[in-house]
């Protein structure tokens, strides 16, 4: 359920509305579910879009961490693996806790 895909903000039209780009395809999206809780959205940001709404920003650090885990597979000992399981609880940068 819930087709949602990553896209990059290219332009802010208003506090609630921004132009999003997905490999050259552009559409206005509503960013109020981020901006209205103080999460700044600026051009260059990557967000996840569902039915025309930006639902969350994408945390690139987390993305790299998980990919790194995948890439380390088969090249680490079981102990290393066990350490990897202990995923740090996500702490999104720039997110206002409210």
């Amino acid at each position, binding site marked *: *359920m*819930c*087709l949602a*895909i990553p896209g990059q903000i290219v332009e802010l039209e208003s506090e609630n509305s921004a132009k999003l780009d*997905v*490999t*050259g*395809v552009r*559409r206005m999206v509503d960013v109020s579910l981020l901006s209205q809780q103080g999460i700044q959205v600026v051009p260059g940001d990557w967000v996840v*879009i569902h039915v025309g709404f930006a639902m969350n920003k994408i945390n690139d650090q987390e993305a790299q961490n998980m990919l790194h885990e995948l890439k380390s597979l088969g090249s680490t000992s079981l102990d290393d693996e066990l350490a990897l399981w202990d995923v740090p609880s996500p702490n999104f940068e720039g997110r206002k806790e409210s």
Partner: protein
Amino acid sequence: MKEDRITMSHGAGGKSSHDLIEGLIRPLLSNPALDSLDDAAVLPLATFLPSCGEGALAFTTDSYTVSPVIFPGGNIGDLAINGTVNDLAMAGARPMALSAGLILEEGVSTALLREVLTTMADAARRVGIAVVTGDTKVVPRGKGDGIYINTAGVGVIERQWPMGQGHIKPGDKVLVSGSIGNHGIAVMLTREGIEMQSPIISDTRPLYSLVHVLLQAVGSGVHALKDPTRGGVATTLNEMAVGSNVAIKVFEEALPVDAAVRGACEILGLDPLTIANEGKLLAVVSSDRVGEALSAMRQHPDGTQACVIGEVQDNPGGMVFLETLLGGTRVLDMLVGDPLPRIC
């Protein structure tokens, strides 16, 4: 044909279209030329005039109802020329003459009509073909959509070997002349309720010249040609698989899809394999002639991206399957319904 009423799905070129044609239209109008369901009917010229000897006439028709009438990369005018020229070309025929039937909606602007006809004339000139006969009807407002165009085309076939969706053989390779999905996505993104901007433009173009170089290079090594229009590559390959009772295996990795088309498909939950093309062809070529076929096509401006996307196997007959990017395998079915955006 189970449904009581026609829905949009019956015109989308996929399974429902197939049901409508096979379940109603073809049986009622049945005759050998129609029954082959190839892009164009092939009629021996000798049946017209005994003195003509060998050689055949190719005859085809398509109606164009694209909305909007003008879309990124073209309009209904060049689409109507190119589409019918292409159906002739897919029979290996040299296009000779076109007819044009305009169905205009009351209120359509003369300026729009002029633009479309100008594009139509340019497209015909590009192919060196003339619209030799025509007809114009006007329907009341709300009974049309600006401009509909039907074109029919006649061409001449000089080749001496059988070719068509019934002549595919195990071992053959499936080639595509370039990236897929551009036309259908270019049009869809302009629709009300989607409204996305993109650099994607329709690939509408005439393919006879590309077919000509391919046939020159490979001759009887070409077993079938088909333009993957409505229903896209997936549907067209299924028609071929059924037509020759063979299996076709497609390599997802090999499919040429432009980045923006991929992006649009991801956003809308669509599969580029079921999206219409208007300037691409699928060629099924004997495996020993693939190299020549590819190099001939790639030297032509309309085939620079030509590549092999699949191969023909003998089992299971009538099926198309896809080897996924990840090495998995799945059935690749015809389009079901109309390609509509999904949210889930």
